[in-house]
């Protein structure tokens, strides 16, 4: 197999930078796994539920709450579009009622965590990201540095940021700039 190259290869070098003292932020990255979009029309929900239940996911989730099970996550990103990670290969579901699309290479994940992670997020997006407003399990579609991203809250201080691969470096760099005052550690794979 050919080598899979992360768009963040040049960035994911273990190390520490920014403010001395406490490390408020940890940054890392991982590739997305089998990310597929399903899209439909009219009775999209019925068609989607069929796919999701085959994948062991129950329910469509909401526009802010992902449906998660068995290591899979499904995000309702629009009325008639759902994005599923770890979906396997959904090409066989393509029909006149459902369009499936492989986006596994279109995004990469930036891992943002640490005691100051919410502060960094509040510098990047104009959305209330305090714990009550954006608790674990919720997701947001928004923009970081003018780039459309999806942010999944993984816990009190942990977030996964799904960024388009061709914009990933620029998003990463801007996150780093914003994180510097908190002290940053980059965690390589």
């Amino acid at each position, binding site marked *: 197999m050919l080598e899979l190259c992360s768009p963040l290869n040049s960035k994911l070098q273990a190390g520490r930078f920014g403010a001395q003292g406490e490390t408020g932020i940890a940054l890392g990255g991982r590739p997305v796994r089998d990310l597929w979009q399903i899209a439909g029309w009219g009775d999209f929900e019925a068609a989607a539920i069929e796919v999701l239940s085959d994948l062991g996911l129950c329910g469509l989730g909401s526009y*802010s709450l992902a449906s998660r099970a068995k290591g899979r996550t499904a995000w309702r*990103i*629009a*009325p008639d579009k759902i994005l599923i990670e770890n979906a396997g290969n959904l090409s066989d579901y393509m029909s006149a009622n459902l369009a499936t699309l492989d986006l596994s290479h279109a995004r990469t994940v930036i891992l943002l965590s640490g005691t100051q992670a919410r502060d960094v997020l509040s510098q990047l997006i*104009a959305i209330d990201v305090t714990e009550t407003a954006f608790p674990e399990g919720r997701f947001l*579609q928004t*923009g970081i540095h003018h*780039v*459309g991203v999806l942010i999944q809250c993984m816990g009190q201080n942990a977030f996964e940021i799904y960024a388009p691969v061709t914009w990933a470096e620029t998003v990463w760099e801007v996150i780093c700039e914003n994180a510097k005052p908190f002290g940053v550690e980059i965690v390589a794979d």
Partner: protein
Amino acid sequence: MIRIKCPICGLRNETEFTYGADATVKRPEMGEQEQQPWVDYVFNRDNPRGWHKEYWHHVQGCRQWVVLERNTLTHEIGECKLAREVEQ
């Protein structure tokens, strides 16, 4: 800051959107061969001083086009709906 309550994503700042245009002009049917309806659609505007229905595109979000009611004089915000749910 125009704040738009996207029916999908919730209340967001205008910076996540791009502004479209007047949402009251109706695109002629594809088969329309007369020029004037197209000129009216593409170029001419009521341009009201007051309440205005307008398209915004949630590009850094759900990528839905929405129709927002907004007052062009006071910048008050009214209802926001998915464009696909608005009768033209």
